[in-house]
């Protein structure tokens, strides 16, 4: 669809806002020449390139994880199927779960965050661009070290790797070690990334953007980052103990050595439960961005949505043991953790009500992004309600570890996080790549997703209540599970086709001749739409000053309480009226109009800017080398032949040391 067609379709939208938003001339003073081509990508410290690399890598892992799921559904489609044996099936379970959690959903949200957070808060880049590159490469190499296990024996203990099954006495193969290194490397990656987000969001917002004016996606990324920072160390400690159990003769989780398998579960879920909110919160943020734009209305109850996210963040640390009701915690602990788990339903419900409130009375345009956002809400309600039943210990005794839980997790993670991610993809694709994803194909994608998803996962509720435990590779035909397993498999393959449609859509969008993309094709409200599509390396020529929650909708949303103090301080000669576009402007506004406040700030920050141009960090290869060194060290622990071990260890340490040295030297220059 061309821009012209798009505009024609949106006939009622004020053409002044569709028009290219005023932007000052892009100047690149004093920038060093940057390497181009693939070298330009792997040495990049640009948050946008890193974000795109994150998205590409995670999408590849998504496809791999999806193929694993389809293989499992093939086996489960019929009773006593003999396509694979238990060992292969368990490997697939572990690969699928781990891939989707650690290699897809967490990093894909980091990818969105990386690309969008600096743009949304009007910053040039993340606070620590080199560390940003490091977290990308740690994640990529974490994925690689995990998937090398395909060449020997993949892990077979599920994504939770419960001890003592994951101990060397029961699974002496390297698969679990690969899993451990995956958790170490991606955990380090997420920790560094999260610190980066926190520093960026706390500190690099523009003038005028208090916490109350931050886009809701930035809010959720901030909470995501806090949760990662505070939850990851628990699993880091746990997997380190597992590693020493497996290789250095300790027995932290070995009951015959005085250890305790429940310690693993407690530490794992102390991380694991905040993790599920880590997975879902930024998707909620995406939905909170998409809904207002396509409803033509601001979000309903901004502070309720923001604060309910914070509340979910706090509560998520108090409910971990609801994954362990069946281990026999005792009535008191069961009751306490059940209460917390019920409680967490309140802020979640509030968000849903507020989203519906946002759409209520709006003028809803069902672009694909909007469809996915609505799909998110509809599906997340189901996941949320099945979650309430799981929070009740007695009901949980029946439903935990059955297909009911499988249905629940997929309703919140696929129906929730991944639907939200798709919404974000269709929404920000024009900004990232300067092209639209095709709407027609997008709608096919959406409806196939909805049908396939519900057909695949809704019957799992019934399978679970009929007593089908999860993670079994075969079942007897007389259990009454045949029909719905068949349906579920059919649904899974429909879902597979829908992802192929998406891939087709991406290829189609990539191959279409490029056209000029307006800065703000959806007539959205947040700052990322104030720059070009795709944005220049330094994002904004001048750091914008923010006067409201919806900087690009100021003509429709006069700032409350009249003249904000900021305007008086930073731009005494501008007023709201001057900054809004005249309604009849049809063509692109020239440089002269230049959005008065942008120009003002340029002057304001003149002395800062003049000296070091835009102060963009130089490209560097050292983060990648450092991560590569850690990959080699992980290999050294993974491979048993001594010669390989020593070689990998020595090279790894050399790479590591060289990278640190080079990095420090580069900074201090």
């Amino acid at each position: 669809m061309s821009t012209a067609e798009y505009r024609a379709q949106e006939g009622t939208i004020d053409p002044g806002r569709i028009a290219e938003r005023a932007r000052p001339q892009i100047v690149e003073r004093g920038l060093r020449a940057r390497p181009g081509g693939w070298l330009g990508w792997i040495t990049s410290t640009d948050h946008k390139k890193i974000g795109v690399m994150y998205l590409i890598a995670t999408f590849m892992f998504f496809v791999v994880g999806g193929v694993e799921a389809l293989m499992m559904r093939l086996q489960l489609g019929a009773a006593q199927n003999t396509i694979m044996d238990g060992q292969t099936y368990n490997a697939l379970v572990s690969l699928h779960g781990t891939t989707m959690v650690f290699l897809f959903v967490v990093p894909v949200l980091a990818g969105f965050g990386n690309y969008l957070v600096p743009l949304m808060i009007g910053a040039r880049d993340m606070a620590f661009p080199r560390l940003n590159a490091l977290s990308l490469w740690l994640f990529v190499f974490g994925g690689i070290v995990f998937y090398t296990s395909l060449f020997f024996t993949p892990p077979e203990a599920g994504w939770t790797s419960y001890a003592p099954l994951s101990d060397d006495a029961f699974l002496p193969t390297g698969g679990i070690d690969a899993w451990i290194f995956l958790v170490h490397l991606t955990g380090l990656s997420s920790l560094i990334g999260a610190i980066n987000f926190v520093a960026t969001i706390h500190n690099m917002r523009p003038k005028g953007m208090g916490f109350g004016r931050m886009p809701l996606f930035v809010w959720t990324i901030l909470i995501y980052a806090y949760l990662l920072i505070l939850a990851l160390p628990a699993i880091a400690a746990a997997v380190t103990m597992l590693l020493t159990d497996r290789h250095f003769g300790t027995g932290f989780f070995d009951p015959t050595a005085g250890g305790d398998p429940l310690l693993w579960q407690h530490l794992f879920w102390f991380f694991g439960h905040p993790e599920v909110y880590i997975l879902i919160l930024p998707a909620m943020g995406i939905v909170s961005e998409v809904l207002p734009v396509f409803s033509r209305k601001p979000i309903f109850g901004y502070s309720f949505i923001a604060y309910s996210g914070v509340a979910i963040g706090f509560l998520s640390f108090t409910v971990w043991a609801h994954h362990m009701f069946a281990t026999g915690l005792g009535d008191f602990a069961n009751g306490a953790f059940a209460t917390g788990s019920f409680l967490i339903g309140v802020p979640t419900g509030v968000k849903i009500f507020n989203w519906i409130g946002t759409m209520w009375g709006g003028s809803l345009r069902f672009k694909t992004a909007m469809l996915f956002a609505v799909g998110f809400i509809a599906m997340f309600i189901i996941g949320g309600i099945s979650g309430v039943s799981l929070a009740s210990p007695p009901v949980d005794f029946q439903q935990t570890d059955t297909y009911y839980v499988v249905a629940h997790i997929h309703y919140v993670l696929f129906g929730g996080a991944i639907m939200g991610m798709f919404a974000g993809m269709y929404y920000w694709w024009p900004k990232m790549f300067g092209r639209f994803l095709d709407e027609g194909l997008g709608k096919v994608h959406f409806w196939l997703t909805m049908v396939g998803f519900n057909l695949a996962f809704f019957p799992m509720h019934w399978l679970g209540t009929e007593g089908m435990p999860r993670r079994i590779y075969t079942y007897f035909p007389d259990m009454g599970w045949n029909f719905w397993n068949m349906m579920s498999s059919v649904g899974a393959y429909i879902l597979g086709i829908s992802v192929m449609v998406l891939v087709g859509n991406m290829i189609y969008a990539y191959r279409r001749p490029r056209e000029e993309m307006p800065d703000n094709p959806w007539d959205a409200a947040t700052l990322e739409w104030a720059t070009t599509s795709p944005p220049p390396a330094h994002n904004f020529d001048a750091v914008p000053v923010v006067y409201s929650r919806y900087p690009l909708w100021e003509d429709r949303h006069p700032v409350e309480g009249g003249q904000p103090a900021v305007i008086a301080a930073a731009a005494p000669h501008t007023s709201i009226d001057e900054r809004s576009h005249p309604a009849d402007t049809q063509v692109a506004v020239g440089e002269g109009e230049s959005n008065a406040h942008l120009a003002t700030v340029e002057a304001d920050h003149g002395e800062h800017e003049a000296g070091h141009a835009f102060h963009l960090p130089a490209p560097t290869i050292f983060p990648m080398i450092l991560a590569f060194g850690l990959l080699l060290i992980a290999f050294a622990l993974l491979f048993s032949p001594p010669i390989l071990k020593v070689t990998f260890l020595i090279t790894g340490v050399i790479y590591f040391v060289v990278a640190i040295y080079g990095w420090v030297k580069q900074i201090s220059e």
Partner: protein
Amino acid sequence: MASPCQIDRRHLAALLALGALLGLLAAAPAAFADILTPEDGGGSPPAERTDVLYEITLWMALPIFLLVEGVLIYSLVKHRFRRGAPEPAQVRGNTRLEIGWTVGAAAILVVLTVITLAFLPGIRDPEAGGAQRAGAVAVAATDQPDVPPGGPSLNVRVVGQQYIWRYDYPGPGRLFAYHRMVVPTDTTITLDITSQDVQHSFWIPELFGKADAVPGHINDMWFKVTEEGVYRGNCAELCGENHAQMIGEVEAMSPDRYRAWADRQRSDIRTAARALADQRRRMQAQQGAGEGSLLRQ
């Protein structure tokens, strides 16, 4: 690209389809909750009470689910974009309404919490008769004098191992069974559940919920069957490559038949143990002490 008018109609049809789908989804769980409505569950209290609790939860959740999804779909249809319509009112929120639904959601969940907490002890803790579990006396051991007040009870130790369950019965003489646990009807059966290798989860859906068998720990669960029959359940915690084949069964029979079974089983075990001892002696005699030590337990 289709004209906007057609798009609208298509949207409407799609939304109605979505609505029908959601309605179907909502109606379904009630009809399919087999385990949680154990009509052939032999009246085991933990399962029955769980079922009641589940139905309370379900009937509270269902109207909320229908209401929320209904309002969602209604607003999608009602407030869809119409050509020439004015820009919508820029409503930013409504504090009273928002506080209202926050409090409302909290109130519903508090009620649910209270109900759950009220049900919890009755499901988790054995009834009278199983109360003095430590000193519980097996009904089978008829020579034992004092049956605890509140009815007969039996304590069985359930031990998981890859990939089978073993049941150790109390009382004089060794009595144990693999795979199928035989219990008398109308008796409170208390279970001490543990594992000797990896973690398993003992679960007979029609009788009681899961109790994880964690090595190094003793978990407990209980049930009481009123009708004779065989009840089956899978191990519910991934325990290795043959996890799917780790199946446990409970067979309930009248106390008289149970006693007969127990006596027969005991004598079978005695016979087998004697035969094993004989074989061991023969082998030791033949091969000498050094290799015989391989058979040392």
